[in-house]
């Protein structure tokens, strides 16, 4: 299977013909509009290695994310970054390529923090291996983490090894009433205390906090925080954008900024996660106005879901970073065949 993927890539490279790397298509909406001939990765699937005592799993790109998570769950382990699926068809390769993390990101870390190794097919059709299956590895540049979130523009992720965590034995969600500024302060305060907070969210003057860990620790923290208990399923709604907040035709912006930034004066509705570091915005405001506000807040505005993405999905990098990123792209993909334009504007 890997040989046939390599063959397709070599052929496309020789013709300088664009390839659109695609798993289950669950994140087709994300990034700038994809173009090129579809290269379906779902045939290259399956768990390669999983031993729970190693806290590591290695699987091929086409492995359905749900299948992987079910396997881990049976062993009381999980992907600590809680990735969104956005559709039942989501694959592991797409998950790593998109690099998106879920509600646990502020406490556990981002997807890239858990990538230990990748096997990659580069733009020459070469099969390359970086990193490995061990927790600590500083041999060579950290290419496997560079690949995370590169939206398939550097190569086809054929296989990936991820660090895992035990599933917390106990988990509860509390809801408190708090206006935005107060909620931001509380979330950041809690994060600075030894409390087992695993997720926070704020919307419509309600602050939600999830506690995860050993039962006695969760119980003690719940007593300290107060509020009323609600269903843990709330987090899945936020993670998968199934929550009522995400309904409606307005463009959806993903705003990333320092967590302690005061409330942003933007038109529309906001849902806050990650102690204030991630703010979802449903708004019809012009793109330049949103981006200017975030630039002033030392953050970034990503046009996450919108019918019209002519303003570009991602905030453009400055000239030096732009040059470095372009040179890296051509180091991996000299013919420029992988997902052209999906991450960076084409030149």
């Amino acid at each position, binding site marked *: 299977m890997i040989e046939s993927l390599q063959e397709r890539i070599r052929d496309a490279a020789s013709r300088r013909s664009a390839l659109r790397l695609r798993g289950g298509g669950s994140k087709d909406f994300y990034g700038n509009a994809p173009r090129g001939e579809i290269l379906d990765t779902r045939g290259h699937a399956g768990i390669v290695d999983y031993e729970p005592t190693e*806290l590591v799993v290695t699987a091929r790109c086409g492995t359905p994310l749900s299948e992987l998570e079910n396997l881990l769950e049976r062993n009381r382990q999980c992907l600590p970054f809680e990735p969104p699926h956005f559709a039942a068809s989501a694959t592991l390769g797409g998950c790593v390529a998109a690099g998106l993390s879920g509600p646990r990101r502020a406490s556990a870390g981002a997807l890239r923090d858990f990538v230990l190794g990748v096997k990659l097919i580069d733009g020459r059709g070469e099969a390359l291996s970086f990193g490995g299956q061990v927790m600590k590895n500083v041999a060579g540049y950290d290419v496997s983490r560079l690949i995370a979130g590169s939206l398939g523009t550097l190569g086809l992720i054929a296989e990936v090894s991820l660090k895992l965590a035990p599933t917390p034995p106990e988990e509860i969600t509390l809801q408190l009433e708090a206006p935005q500024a107060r909620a931001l302060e509380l979330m950041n305060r809690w994060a600075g205390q030894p409390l087992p907070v695993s997720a926070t969210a704020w919307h419509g003057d309600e602050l939600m906090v999830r506690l995860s860990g050993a039962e006695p620790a969760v119980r003690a923290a719940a007593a300290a925080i107060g509020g009323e208990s609600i269903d843990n399923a709330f987090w899945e709604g936020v993670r998968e954008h199934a929550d009522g907040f995400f309904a409606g035709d307005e463009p959806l912006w993903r705003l990333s900024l320092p967590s302690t930034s005061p409330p942003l004066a933007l038109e529309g509705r906001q849902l806050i996660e990650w102690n204030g570091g991630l703010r979802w915005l449903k708004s019809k405001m012009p793109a330049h106005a949103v981006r200017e506000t975030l630039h002033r807040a030392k953050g970034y505005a990503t046009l996450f879901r919108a019918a019209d993405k002519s303003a570009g999905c991602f905030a453009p990098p400055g000239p030096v970073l732009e040059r470095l990123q372009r040179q890296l792209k051509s180091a991996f993909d000299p013919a420029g065949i992988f997902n052209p334009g999906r991450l960076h504007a084409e030149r």
Partner: protein
Amino acid sequence: MNSRDVVAALREFLPERAILHAEEDTRPYECDGLTAYRQLPMVVALPETVEQVQRILKACSALKVPVVPRGAGTGLSGGALPPDDGVLLSMAKFMRALRIDPLARVAVVQPGVRNAVVSELAAPYGLYYAPDPSSQIACTIGGNVSENSGGVHCLKYGLTLHNVLGVRGFTIDGEPIELGGEAPDAPGYDLLALTIGSEGMLMVVTEVTLKLLPKPQCARVIMASFDDVEKAGAAVADVIAAGIVPAGLEMMDRPATHAVEQFVHAGYDLQAAAILLCESDGTSEEVDDEIARMKAVLERAGATRMTVSRDEAERLRFWSGRKAAFPAVGRISPDYYCMDGTIPRKRLGEVLTFIAAMEQKYQLRCPNVFHAGDGNLHPLILFDANDTDQLHRTEQFAAEVLEKCVEVGGTITGEHGVGVEKINQMCVQFGARELALFRAVKHAFDPHGLLNPGKAIPTLARCSEYGGMRVHGGKLPHAELPRF
């Protein structure tokens, strides 16, 4: 380019005290923590401002003169070995903590700030900086970023990579760049992840934003004895299998505990073939719960004796031996050679047996201390550098162990870096195509190869020479096979 021209170029903007070029002044910079490799730098520059760093880089890249950045020089792989034809760029004067923000839980520091200082500055707010390499009282944050340093708490709290939010600095051309920052998930490629651990070969860092964590309310450690090294190794896997991620999980074999006990009197069980130190931290409820679970697992795994630290003083005493392991070994042997391979935990027993066989083969002693939780081994080969045959046997011994680490699915370096020391073993770890891509990455940042040249990434010619040598000795298994 000769020394006089470089000095003249630097004098244009640097004060006299910031340029060292007389041998008596440059001698202290001839090596880092790996003293087996020494080289006098042509010139040492000690800038005091960010603008001076930028101008040094601009001047050196215009003159095509190599630049090697250096922090405290505590690195163990020769990553800061100076250039005899270039400038050693010491960041030692960048010692200011610029900002501590307790609510945002970040510290913004200059690269010359020492690792331990960050936690000291954060302590009044109940916060700390998690990565704690054993050299933390001396090593600098800039050096930690270059090497992606670890420590004894990595399994739970991660490496430098997981605890750095952003860096600012310059490319070799002196162009300012800022990677990451307090806002999560900067758009575009994750150049921050690429830069951390790049051994100072991609950029020069002038400012680092660190993540601070709440200091756990309490911590307790179990000291468990085993009558067999393999049983201790299996116990490590059992702890993880039980769904526990210990704050620290360290192992020492009998030769190591004996060396240490003479030095610091940590109270180790000298009868045991190996001891494990298994730490829990968190709220007092969490710690009580976890210690009870760990004890049950270790008991089932065959621990012959267990002691749980009763108070902070006792906890620190148990750790004092582990943290003093290297200097303690330094007292029982004229020299020692520290390895840094990482292996999958399940292969621990096999690799320890292999190391014991190598002790016989090369007639050299090798105590073992290691970060068992994350499979990072530090076998310490004891030798006398004045005996050239011993030195030669030590190098052969080390090479075989590192190659064994690769063979079982691990790596030649878990936290010390490749530097100049393990550059030959990079040819065992990676194939020609991966190495070519590393060079292309380097080229994207530094097209003329001026920043820390000759470190970490071997040339193809070097690999074919090494491969030829090793194959000739019959040591390198399947050198002809691609490693995919």
